[in-house]
Every structure is written in C-alpha cells, then in structure tokens.
C-alpha cells in the first residue's frame, strides 16, 4: 500500500473528518454547529468504510459478463462494506433529523441556541 494510493488518502481524509467532527462537537457552543459536527463525524466514518472496501483495479461487485463467478474474489471490490455504508448513511440521516427536531424544541423554549443555557439539571 503506497502512501498516495486512493484508499490511503480516503482513510486519512475520513479520520481527519472524524477529528474535525469531534472538535466541533466539543468546542462549538451553537447547537446547530454541534449537529453539523455529528454530520462530519458520520461522513468521516462512511468514507473510512468505503475505503476499506476498495481493492485496487477491481470492479463493482456485480457478477455479469465482465466478471465471472470463478475469479470474482480477485476482481471485485468487497461488497459488504458497501452494504454497511448504506445502512450507516440512513442511520446518520435519522439521527441528524431527530437531533434537529430536538434543537428546534430547545430553541422554541429558550430562544437561544447556546448549549450552555440548557444546564438546569445537574449534579
């Protein structure tokens, strides 16, 4: 695996996005920006998943005239992570939507998006 191969770059990018996402979640006080942080986090993971599936010079995991059943193992990209990433994207969407719904309710309550205003419960 060369340092400049595609899956390597993709994986690095994925990790950078994850770190960026966590950074956003931990430092931005604005609820919406925190939700965006989560989106970055999810995207980073999704890119990593795809990068794991990548096999150099391979084709899509569809068995047809181009790829026979026999040499499929050598020629196609790993189909499992590709299936996983779809599920992961859907879940990410659901979570983001729900979080935004919560943000809306919080905003309606106190007319602010600052996370530090929602600390009535503690200790």
């Amino acid at each position, binding site marked *: 695996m060369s340092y400049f191969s595609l899956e390597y770059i993709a994986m690095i990018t994925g990790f950078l996005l994850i770190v960026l996402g966590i950074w956003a979640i931990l430092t931005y006080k604005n609820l919406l920006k925190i939700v965006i942080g989560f989106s970055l986090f999810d995207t980073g993971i999704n890119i990593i998943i795809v990068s794991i599936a990548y096999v150099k010079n391979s084709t899509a995991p569809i068995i047809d005239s181009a790829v026979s059943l026999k040499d499929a193992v050598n020629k196609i990209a790993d189909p499992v992570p590709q299936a996983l990433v779809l*599920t992961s994207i859907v879940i990410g969407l659901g979570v983001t939507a729900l*979080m935004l719904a919560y*943000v809306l309710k919080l905003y309606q309550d106190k007319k602010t998006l600052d996370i530090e205003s929602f600390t009535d419960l503690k200790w």
Partner: protein
Amino acid sequence: MISPIHIISISLGVAFAIGFLGKNSNKLSAVIMLLTIGILTFISAQWAQAFYFGNQETVQIFTAGYKPPFSINLQIGVSESIIILLINSIGLLGGIYLFDTLVKTGKNAVVVYLIFIMSLNQVVLTQDIFNLFVFLEIQSIATAGLIVLERNRNSISSGFKYMIATGIISSLLLIGIVFGYYFTGSLNIADFIQANMMLSKGGAVALFLILASLLLELKPFPANGWALDVYESIKPGTSAMLSAASASAVLFALYKVLPAGNPQTFEIVLGFGLITFVGSNLLGIKQTNPQRLLGYSSVGQIGLIVAILGMKPFLGEKFTFIAIAIFISHFLAKAGLFWLSGIIKADNIRDWANLRKKPFLLVLFGTFVFTLIGFPPFPSFFGKWELIMQLSQSGYWYLVGVILLGSFFEGIYLFKWLGYAIKLDNVNLPEFNINWKKIIPVAIVGVLTYLAGYYSSFFTTGTEHFEKFFVPLFFIAILYFLDFLPNFVKNIIAIAGMSYYGYILLPGLYETDLLRFIFGAIFIVGGVLTLIAGFTYKGQRKGFHPAALMMFAGLGGIIQASNMIEFFFSWEMMTLGSYILIIRGKKSMPHGLSYMLFSLAGAYLILAAFGFTFSQNGISLEALKGLAFAPNLIYGLLAVGFMTKTASLGLHIWLPGAHAEAESDVSPMVSAILLKAGVFGLIILFLSMGAEAAGQNSILYLLGWLGAITALVGNTAASFQEDAKKLLAYSSIGQLGYILFAFSIMTHLGWLAGFTYSINHFLFKAVLFLAIGAVVLRLKTHNMYEMGGLIKRMPFAFIAVLIGIITLSGVPPLSGFAGKWLFYNAVIEKGWYFQGTIVFFAGTIAFLYSFRLIHSIFLGQLKDNHRTVKDISIWFIIPIYTLIIGIMIFSARPDLILKPIGNFLMPYFPTDALSWTDTMAKTRLGYWDGTWVMIIIGIMFSLIFAWLFILSRKATKVEQFNIAYSGERPERPETTHMAHNIYAGFNKAVGFIVTPNISKFWASASENLDGAAGYFRRIYNGNGQTYALHIIIYTLAMYLMIF
C-alpha cells in the same frame, strides 16, 4: 415453536399496520401494541420453557437462506431465551403502566414503544455485530422518542444530551466494527471470537472500540452525566424501561462480545465495572430527587453486573447463577422503584412519607429497597453470597472489600430514603391517585422478587436444608396478610406460632447442645413473654407482628444454623425484622438508620470473614476452626461484626436512641433478647478460635480491655441520663461490656461468669424495660424528673424494678451476685487485675443509676397529674412476674443451670472448673452457696421487715401537702427536683470519660462522606458538551491504560 425471527417480523408488521389505522384510534393501537408484546412474551416464554424443562438445544436461525458470514444469523439458547423473556414481560408491564400516557401522546408513541421493545430483542438475539450496531441505534432513536413522552424543558434538554452521548458512542462502535471486519473478514461474532483479535495491534484496537462503546452504553461512572439527567427528567415509566429493559439487552451484548478478548480484557471490564459501582453509589448519597437517586443506583448496580461479567473467568460454574441473581434483583427492584416514583410524584425523597397513606405501597417500597441491598429472602442475597464465596475462593479478597464498600454506600442512601418514607410527617402532603394500571405492574414485580428469591435458594451452595428457614417465613407472610385483624387476635396467633416453634426446637437441643439451648430459650421464651406485653395495645397495630416474628425467626435460625449461609441468612432476617421494629418508635427515624448502617457494616464484615473461611475450609460453621491462612484477620472481622450487635464501645452509638425511643414492649425485645445474638456470635467465634487453647490470643486481650472500658463508659453514661429508657439503654451497653470481658477471659470460670451474666441480663433487663416501659405507657413521658412518688400508685411496677436493680447491681441474694462472684474468681485466676479493677469500678457506678430508677421514679413527691394514674397493665405484669420467678429460681438454685453449663464447658475448658457439692460451688479461691445465701438473707429481710412494720404502726401519716412541697415544684420539676441532674458533682469529676467523642467521630465520618459525595458530583455540570468530553476522555483513559 415459533421462530424468534417472528419477534422482529410481527413487531415490524404491527408497527407498520398501526400507521394505517385512522386518526382516532390511539386507544385501539395501544391495545394492539400490548397484545403484540404479549405475543412476544409468549414466544420467549415458550423458548425459555423448552430450554428449561425440555432438552432443547441452542438454535441458530439463518436469514436470507445463507450461512454466516454471508447472512445475519440469530441465536437462541438458554440465556437468550431468559433475557428476552425478561425484556418482553417487563415491556408488557411497562406498556400497561404507560398505557394512558401512550394513548394521550398518540399512536406514533405507541409505535415507538413497540419498536423499542423489538430492538432490544434483536440486540439480544443477533449474532452479527453490524446488525447489533443497527439495532442499538434503533434502540437509541426509540429511546430519544420515548424521552419526549414527558414534554418539558428538562426532558427535552436531557434528550438532546442523550443524543449527543449516544451519537458519539455509536460512532465509536461503528469504527470498531468496521476495523474489526477489516482484520477478521467477518461480521459474525463467533468469527470475531475465533479470530483472536487481540494478537494484532489493529485488531486489538478495533475490539477495544467495540467493547468500550458497549461499556459506555451502560453509563459507566463518571462518563454518565447524560444518563442521570435522562433518568431524572423523563416519565418514570420510561426510566424503568431504560434501567431494566435496555440495560439487560446491552449487558447481554457485552456478554456476547466479551469472549473475543483475552483474560486481560476481562480484568479491565471488571475494573471499570467496580469503579462505577463504588463511585456512583458514593455520589448517590447526596441525592434528594428520587428519580435521580434511582439513576445513580441504577448506574451503580449495572456497574456491579458489568464487573461480574468481567469476573467470569474465575467465578467458574457459579457465574451464570450469580450474574442472573444479581441482575434480576436490579431488574425487578429498579423497575418497581421507578414505577412507584411515578405513582407518588414527589420531587424530594422526603416527600415519600406520602407513600404511607397506602401501606401496601410502603411494603412494596421496602421490598425493593431490601432487594437492592441484598437482604434475604431476595435473589440478590443469594447472588451476593455466592459472589463473595467464589471471589474469596479464587483469592480475590480485595475485590470482596471493594464490592462490600460499594454496597454499603448504596445502603446509606436507600435506608435514609426508606426511613423518610416510614417516619416523616405526611399530613400536609397532597393526596395521590391510585390508578390500577400503575399499581398492578408494581405489585407483580413485587411478588416476583419473593418468588425469584425462593427459587434462587436452590442454586446456592449449602441450602439443602433451607425448608426450616422458609417455613417460619411463610408463617410470617400469612400473618402479614392477616394484618387487618385486631391486635389481640394476631398476638394470639403470633404467640401460638412462637410457642410451637419453641416446642419443636428446644427440648431436643437440651440434650444435644446446651449452648444453643440456653440462647434458644432466651430468644424464644423471651420472645413469647415480651409478646404477651403486646396485648396492652388496642386496635390493629399494623406491621408489628410480621416484623417481630421475623426478628425471632432470625434469632431462632441462628441457633439452628449448621453452616455459614444458614447462619448469615438468619442473621440478616433478624436485622431486617429488628430494624422495622426499632423504627416503629415515634422519634426513631435517625436511630433506625444508624442501627441499620452499623448492622449492615457488621454483616458485611461477617460476610467477608465467611468468604475467606469458605475459601479454606468449606461452608460448615465448623470450618471456622483451624484456619490455616490469615486466621487473625478473619477472627478480627467476625469479632467487629458481632460487636456491632453487642454495641461495644465505638460501635455503640446506635443503641441508646434505638432502645430508648422504641415502643414499650419492643425495648425489651431489642435489648434483653436481640443483643444476645451478638453474644452468641462471639461465643461461636471464641469456640472456633480454640477455646482454652486460644487464651493468649492478642485479639482476646484487646477484646478484654474493650469490654472493661465499655462497661465503665456505658455505666457512667447511664448515671447521667434523665430519660429512664435511655438510662436502661446505656446500662445495656455497660452490661454487654461485662459479658464481652467475661468471655474474653477464656477460662472455665470466665465463661461461667459470661453465661451467668448473659442469662441475668436477659432476665433483669427484660423486667426493667418492661416495667419502665409500662410506666412510660401510663405517664407518657420518659423523663424521670417528671415522675416520682409512684410507689403507692404502682406497687407492682415498684417491686419489679426493685428486684430488677438488685439483680443488676449484683448484691446478694439474687443471681447478680452469682455472676459477680464467678467473675472475680475468674479475674483473679486470669491475672487481669487492671481490667478487673476497671470493671469493679464500673460495677459500683451501676449502683448510682440503679438508685436513680427507684429514687426518682417511685420515691419522692407524686406529681399532680399522676394522682389518679393506675398501676401498669396486667399484660406487662404477667411477663414481668414470670421473669421474676425465673430470677428467683436462678438465684436460689444456680446449680440447676450452672452445673450443666459447667459440664458442657468441660471439653472446651478442662482446667480449673467449678466443683459442686450439692448447692455449694467451690473454686480455688473460695466457695459460695446460692441457696443458703437466699435463705439467710430471706430470714434477715423478713425479720427487719416485720420489725419495721410493727414500728410503722405508731407513725403518723403525713399527706403530701400537709406541710410543704419539700422544696419541690411539681409543675416544673426540673428546676428544683433534686432527682434532676442528681450526679452533677460526679459528672464534674469523671464526666470527661463520657464526652461523646465517639459520636462526634461517626458524625464527622458521615459528614466527610457527604461532603465528598457533594464535591465529586459537581463533575456533572449539566452541560451536554461536558458530558461528551467525559465520554471522549473516558475512552482515551481506557485506551492509555490498556495499550
């Protein structure tokens, strides 16, 4: 049988179908949802039954027609079937509980609830790690939906915090899963376990992320602030589901994946589980909001179960039982408690006094609290016992200490709470509604705790003969259900039951085991006599009889126990019963708590000692003999444990309040009788240490000193009391000091003295407490300076007290003298002169307080408001005078009892025995004849009495107000009454020895604990971002510790 895959298909089908129902079909959809969960429960019950009663083997279900890793497979085995049965049945009950809320919120909420239950099932069943992730996410999203069943500012903000936390956790899980797949080429958990992921660094990190995120889902301390906010702010019905149902599924997921690690992984999980258990329970001490407090307790209990999962490698074949017993206790009790908090609707645990308006709810509350702490007969008792035994056997003694410490912290806040509910004033609290949909689930889990406890006993080592301990409990249960009957009917039943118990138990013991016979007689005969006094009370006297009988059943059980679990089971029953008895007193709340906490700590020391013994010699009580390893540690733990019950100095601060504030007939029960349980324990301990052979043991030397100082301090404090019952209570501390001292001497004479003291203390303390208690019942005050001149109004009480104090002070002719005579012989033979002098000095101080009982109560001026007071109740006179007959017999013919005891002691203490000729006892130092002493003093007494009687006919009777008040002001007696602060000068001289340094010490210990809890809980600052940071730091810290 229905394939478990239909759990998913049916739920999903119904969930979608509900969407097609019309707009006004909320109720219909909720009913359909309940029916569906009913079907799920049925499916899981069917499987559980097949596994348990049939020969069903574990089944794999392959989806999509392919085998893993090409498809997702489900697995159902014994454990899976039990866990989903639990989840579905609690889901059903929880659905009934939340029915009205769900209907009000709408059918979408109904669907979310159904999906929530379904996702938990799949988390348990699936064998595919990615599938696990998906259903954990569905569970999180469903939870986020259920959180807003309660719609207010706090629940919405805590819901958002929940989303932040679970968002981060599930992302970590996903990264772990993806890299797990990268290194193993499979998503199947079985393949993960096969692949030995710990061998490569990458695989290890992947597995670490998976395990860490599952752990984080279980809200480990301190990365759990988000969960606490959720528990506090949402509908209690939802909290119950999170704490019971969600936790079971995630715990099971952790259990499934854990074998992929290596032994070190187990240790790490164990460590983090225990940190959670101790830490969370410590912080719980400071909580006042019931739901938040339950959140802390929940987190703690789940931490313990996580730790148990981590202990799997060394718990051996008992692992499953231990894990399930402790888990199911948490599961049932926590669901029940959260549900109760939804019924009572109070923001502060002090307001739970309201619960008392519906007594059966209070009983359920108590049931759950005792279940959580691990009292018998609940499953956690057996689970915890087996856990301690197995841990000790594997050599992890320090873990025993950590677990018991965490349990103790939990006991502090739970018993404080229970005390509030039992005792605080509830007059001004609002009425609450009883909704049967909410009561029934609580009642069902309440009943289940008892059944589960009974069932657990079958799986525990050493419980082959437990029927004899359960039969009395069934009797008590029946008595509880008869609680609506009037007091005298229940009292007759109770006395009949106790008498029958004594009748089958005692005669046989006299032949086989005199030691147990004597204590058995004290417990049971004493019990019957003190119960007779209970006839005085009118009305129903709710809750008294079950508690009293539970204490006596425990005491009887200690006598019957042949192995350590039987002993400990009975010991805890006794504690439970006596706690309820003690806290019944009007002002007993703080004393009940301190009694319980000392007892709990003592019981844990005993439990630890039993564990360490078990690891060497097995479970029989005989195993305490001849310990090869750390005998002094074990004996020391046992000694301190038993001394919490005998209230030796340092461990005595619970006693005065507990005994003084108890009801009039309860005081003698807990004083004359209950304290002897500690003595009995000490005797068992000393015999195990090797009787005479252990005479030089340094522990005994220390205990001797402790006994002597206890006697001195107890007696001195007694003489400064203004409260008659407190005086008697302090006197008990002193007397128990004598007993401890006498047994510590470890010679034949010392033990004879010890037995004589024990029997005497039983007799005279019962007489005194019954008599004074009866007087207090008539006068409605404990203060001696508000009494006086009662000799004419209450002659029966006067004579009883007089005989009581003669016995107590050890002057001839009554049996107290026998004790003293033996005692000084023993001290001189042993050569413990210093200690002996202290005890002698303490004995003279006993005269001071004995005198006060007669002088301040019965002599002097009669108070105006007592002019028409009647003598004490006949129901007190009967037991008092029966006991006095006992004193007379023991005084006149001590040989009847002391001779057999001497014979009994011979094998243990062969040297320097007492030699008897007829009724005359002889030692190397001298002789004494109880019968002749009695006769001579009897004659002298009669002569002097007759002479005085003749003289007194010439005397003129002076009425009370004939001349003056004799310097007294009957309306404000404490200002001028000479009996008030009678020993002021003496106090000035030696009062320093009773400055309450020990009380101050315990007070500051509890303050510091409180302070620490208050300080550390500030890490939960309420900010969702901080909680996210906690999670990240927790993960990093774990990572750094492992790699």
